[in-house]
C-alpha cells in the first residue's frame, strides 16, 4: 500500500515521502505590484528559515491520506459498539447541508442582517431541543459535552454567588464519566463521590449523607453508564433542591430518552446534549462535536453571552447579558455541527425522534439477551440503550476484557468501551445504537459467542489478537517512556522528553 518497501512501516510519513521541488496546488498570480516581504516587514520579524513542511504533489498527498484512511475502523464500515459514545450512522444529507456555500462561506462578524438564514437555522434548532428536553433556556455556544459541563458548573457558581454563597462541593456518582470530576475540579469545587448500590443505581442513603448546605450541584448521568435508568431521579431532584443546590444531567446517554422521557419533568436544572452522539453529527475521528446546554428559566441570565433571541419574524444575538458567565467559545459555537443536527431532526420529525430511542433500547436489550449466557451482565433486568458485561468468567480462563476487545477487531468489528465504568470488573460497555439492523446485531453476537468459545478452546488465539489488523498490539509503555511525538523526534532517533 505504501510507497516504502520497509516492511516495518505500514505507511510512510509525509516527511518520508517528501521530495525537494514537488508542489501541490498553486495560487492565482499576484496582480498588484510586488514590494517584497523584506520591504514591508522588519528583518528581525522574518523567519531565518522556512518551516520544514513536506514537499509533495497533489496526487501523492491524496494517496497518502487515502491509504491512511483505509487503516481506520468507522461506522460506515461496521458496527461500532462503544458504550456511551453513541456511534450511530450519520446521514449523508447532514454534511451536504453544512457545506452549502451560504453556510460554510459566512463569517461570524458579518452584520446580522446579512445572515438571517443562519440565525433561523440556529433558532429552529433551539426550538426542537427545547421541546425535546422540556427546558426553556438554551445555548449552543459550547462545542463539546465536556465544555457544557464546564459552562454549567461555572453558571452554578455564579448562581450561588448571587444567592450569597458560592458553596464548596459538587456531588458526582462513582459511575460518572471522568469529565465530571475533572470539570468540577477545574471550576474550583471539591468532588464528593457517591457510590452506586448493588442495583447499579445511586446509593440513596449515601447520597442523603453527602448532600449539605455546602452542595452546589450534583451531576447525574441518566440513564447511567451501566445503561440503567435512575428511577429515583425525582427524589434525587427533590433532595438536591431542598438543599438549595442544582441538578445537572450529563446527557451522554440521551439517546435512550429522546421523545420518551422529559429531562425537564425529571427536575433537572441543567442538561447537556452531545449533538455528535444523539443527533447524529459525525464524530470526525475525535471531533468536532457540538454541545448544547439547556437550563431552567431562572438560570438563563447566567448563560454564555451572546444568547440568540427571537426578534419579530427572525432572530438576533443579545450581547447585553450583565449576569452572564461570559464567553466559552471565540464565536457562536460549532455552527456547522448545528446545521447537521437540524438536518437530522427535520428528517426524523416528531415520530422519528421517538423511534430513535425506542429502537436503540430494543437493540441493546436484544444484544444483551443474546450475550448474557456467555458474558455476565453487570446487572439483571432490562437495560436502556446500552449495557455492561463483565469478562470475569473469561478472565478466569486467562482471557481479559482487553483480549476480547482486541479479538473483535479481527472479525471486523470495533470493540466496546473497556474497563469503564470503573465499578465493574473487566467491563465491556456495549451500545449498539438504533441504526444497526438485526442482522448486524446477530453477526456481532455470533462473534462474541465465538470468542467466548475460543476463551475455553484456544485462549492463546484471543490473547494474541488482533492478527488481521494493519498492525498488531502496540507497545504503549514504550510510547510513553520514550516519547516520539513528531517527525523531528523520529529523525532525532530518540525520545522527546
Amino acid at each position, binding site marked *: 500500500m505504501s510507497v516504502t518497501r520497509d*516492511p*516495518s512501516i505500514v505507511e510512510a*510519513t*509525509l516527511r518520508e515521502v517528501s521530495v525537494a521541488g514537488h508542489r501541490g496546488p*498553486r495560487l492565482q498570480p499576484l496582480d498588484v505590484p510586488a514590494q517584497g516581504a523584506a520591504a514591508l516587514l522588519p528583518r528581525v520579524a522574518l523567519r*531565518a528559515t522556512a518551516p*520544514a513542511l513536506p*514537499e*509533495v504533489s*497533489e496526487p501523492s498527498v*491524496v494517496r497518502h*491520506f487515502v491509504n*491512511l484512511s483505509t*487503516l*481506520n*475502523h468507522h461506522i460506515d*464500515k461496521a458496527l*461500532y459498539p462503544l458504550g456511551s459514545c453513541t456511534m450511530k450512522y450519520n446521514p449523508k444529507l447532514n454534511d451536504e447541508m453544512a457545506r452549502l456555500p451560504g453556510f460554510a*462561506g459566512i*463569517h461570524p462578524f458579518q452584520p446580522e442582517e446579512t445572515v438571517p*438564514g*443562519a440565525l433561523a437555522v440556529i433558532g429552529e434548532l433551539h426550538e426542537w431541543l427545547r421541546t425535546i428536553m422540556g427546558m426553556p433556556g438554551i445555548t449552543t455556544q459550547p*462545542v*463539546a459535552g*465536556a465544555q457544557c*459541563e464546564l459552562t454549567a458548573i*461555572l453558571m452554578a457558581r455564579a448562581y450561588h454567588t448571587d444567592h450569597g454563597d458560592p458553596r464548596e462541593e459538587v456531588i458526582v456518582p462513582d459511575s460518572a*464519566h471522568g469529565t465530571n*470530576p475533572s470539570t468540577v*475540579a477545574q471550576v474550583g469545587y471539591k468532588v464528593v463521590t457517591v457510590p452506586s448500590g448493588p442495583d447499579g443505581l445511586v446509593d440513596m442513603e449515601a447520597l442523603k449523607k453527602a448532600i449539605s448546605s455546602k452542595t452546589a450541584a450534583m451531576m447525574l448521568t441518566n440513564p447511567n453508564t451501566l445503561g440503567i435508568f435512575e*428511577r429515583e431521579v425525582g427524589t434525587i431532584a427533590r433532595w438536591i433542591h431542598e438543599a438549595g443546590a442544582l441538578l445537572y444531567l450529563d446527557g451522554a446517554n440521551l439517546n435512550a*430518552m429522546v421523545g420518551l*422521557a422529559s429531562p425537564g419533568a425529571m427536575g433537572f436544572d441543567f442538561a447537556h446534549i452531545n449533538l455528535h452522539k444523539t443527533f447524529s453529527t459525525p464524530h470526525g*475521528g475525535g*471531533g468536532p462535536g457540538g454541545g448544547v446546554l439547556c437550563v431552567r428559566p431562572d438560570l438563563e441570565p447566567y448563560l454564555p453571552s451572546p444568547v440568540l433571541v427571537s426578534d419579530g419574524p427572525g432572530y438576533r444575538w443579545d450581547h447585553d447579558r450583565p449576569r452572564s458567565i*461570559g*464567553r466559552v467559545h471565540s*464565536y457562536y459555537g*460549532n455552527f456547522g455541527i448545528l446545521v447537521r443536527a437540524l438536518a437530522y431532526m427535520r*428528517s426524523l420529525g*416528531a415520530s*422519528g425522534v*421517538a423511534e430513535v430511542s425506542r429502537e436503540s433500547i430494543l437493540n441493546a*436489550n*436484544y444484544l444483551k439477551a443474546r450475550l448474557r449466557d456467555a458474558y455476565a451482565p453487570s446487572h439483571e433486568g432490562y437495560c436502556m440503550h446500552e449495557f455492561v458485561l463483565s469478562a470475569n468468567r473469561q478472565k478466569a480462563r486467562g482471557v481479559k476484557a482487553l483480549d476480547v*476487545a482486541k479479538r473483535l477487531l479481527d472479525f471486523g468489528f470495533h470493540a466496546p468501551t473497556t474497563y469503564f465504568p470503573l465499578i465493574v470488573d473487566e467491563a465491556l460497555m456495549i451500545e449498539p445504537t*438504533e441504526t444497526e439492523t*438485526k442482522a448486524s446485531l446477530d453477526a456481532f453476537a455470533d462473534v462474541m459467542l465465538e470468542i467466548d468459545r475460543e476463551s475455553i478452546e484456544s485462549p492463546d488465539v484471543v490473547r494474541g489478537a*488482533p492478527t488481521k489488523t494493519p*498492525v*498488531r498490539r*502496540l*507497545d504503549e509503555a514504550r510510547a*510513553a517512556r520514550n516519547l516520539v*511525538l*513528531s*517527525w*523531528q*523526534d523520529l529523525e532525532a532517533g530518540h525520545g*522527546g522528553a
Partner: protein
Amino acid sequence: MSFVGRSDAERKAMLDRIGARSLEDLWGAIPKEFRVPGALALPAPLAEYENAKRFEAEAARNADAGRYACFLGAGIYDHFIPSAVRAITSRSEYATAYTPYQPEVAQGTLQVIFEYQSMIRELTGMEVANASMYDAGTAAAEAVHLAVGAKGRRRVVVSAGLHPHHRQVLATYASAGGLEIVEVPLAGGRTDPAAAKAATNAETAAFLWAQPNFEGVVEDGEALTAIAHGAGAYSVAVGDPVALSVLTPPGAQGADIVVGEGQPLGVSMSYGGPLVGFFAIRKSDVRRLPGRLSGVTVDLDGRRGFVLTLQTREQHIRRERATSNICTNQGLMALANTIHLALLGAEGMRDVATQCLERAHYLAERAARVPGVSLPHAAPFFREFVLRLPGPASSFVTHALGSSLLAGVPLSRFDRSRPNDLLVAVTEKRTREEMDRYAATLAAWVKSRAAAPAEEAACP
C-alpha cells in the same frame, strides 16, 4: 424517517428473544410522570429532497463569501481551500470514526495526528504540539491554566492585542480559579512595552501576546518574551499559522507556549465553527499538556505504529486531577490543517503569506488615499489593518454591501469609543479588481456623507 432498518417481524422476533411482551416493557423503569405523553409537539418528518430545499433556501438568505468579496478577519479568514482537502475530509474513514481508542484499527487517525503535531511544531518553533483544542480562545485559556500550574502564581498579564473574544474566553475560564487578569494597552497598535513591563511582576504566571495582534500589527516577540522572562513568567503567544509561515516563530523568540487558530489552514469559515486550536509547548512541560497526544511505538512484529500516549494526564484516568477536562480534539479540522499544509508545503505557505502581505498593503495604501481616511497605526502589519474613517465604520459596512463587499469588522463591536475604526483583512483570494472596487466604494461613501451628513444618525 428514522434511519432505522427494522421490519415488524424482526421487531417481534427480537422482543421474543428478550422475553418482553412489548417495547414499552423495556423502559418500564422510567416512572410514568417523566414520560412524554404521546408524541412531542414537533413538525412532521421531511423527505430528503424537501429537507434539502429548505436548507438551500435558508442558505441563500445569507451573504456568503462566494457572492461577496470578504474583507473580514478578526481571527477567521477567507483563504483558498484546495479541493483535495474537502475530498479527503469527507471520507467516511475519517469523518465517521471516533477517538482512536483501539489503535490497531485507527492507525489512519493516529498517524494524521502525529503528522499534524509535527507540522505545528514547525510553524510555531516549539518542541511538542498536542492533537488540537476546540479553538484559539480555549487554547489560550488552557495555556493560562498550564502556566498557573507550572509557576504556582495567580496573576496573568494579557496584551490588549489579543483578540477581545479570546480575552473573554480566558476570563470565563479563569473566573473560577480566582486568577487576577491584568490588561496591557496597545500604543501605536503594538503592545506597550513599558506598560507590559510594569504589569508583569513576580506574582505573574504568564504574559500573553498575539502575533500578529488583533489589529494586524506584527509584534516584537523577542522583546515581549524578555519582559515575561524578566519576571520569571511564561511567555505565551497566540499566533496566526499563515503569518508564522513567514514570521519568526514565537518558539525561536523564546516563547514557552504557542497557541492559535487553525481555521486559516483549510477550514471553512462556517460562521465561526467548527474551528481548531493548536497548542505547542516545550518538552519540559509535556506532563502538564492538556488534550490528546499521538506517539510512535512498535507492534508485536516490530512494525512502526502510533498510539495515544501519556494518557494518565487526561480526564478519563486522572479524573479530578487531570490537566484539563477536554475529552476530544478537533480531529476532522486538524486533518484539514494537515492536508492543507501537505498540499501547499513550505513554498506554498510562503506564497499565501506573501500574497496576503502584498495585497493587504496594496489595499491599505489605496484606501488611505481616500480623503478623510487614514491608517491610525504606523507599525508594520501582516494581512490586516485598521482604517480610520471619517464616519461610523458600521455605516460604511452597510454601504459596501451594495458593491458586493463585506468591508470589514467595525471595532465599535468591541470598543464603543472607536466608532470610526474598521478592521480590514486581505487574503490571497482578494483580487486587484475587488480592492479597487473597495477603494472606489469607500471614496463614494465618503463623498456621499459629505453631501448628506445626516445619514450618520441613521446608522449609529
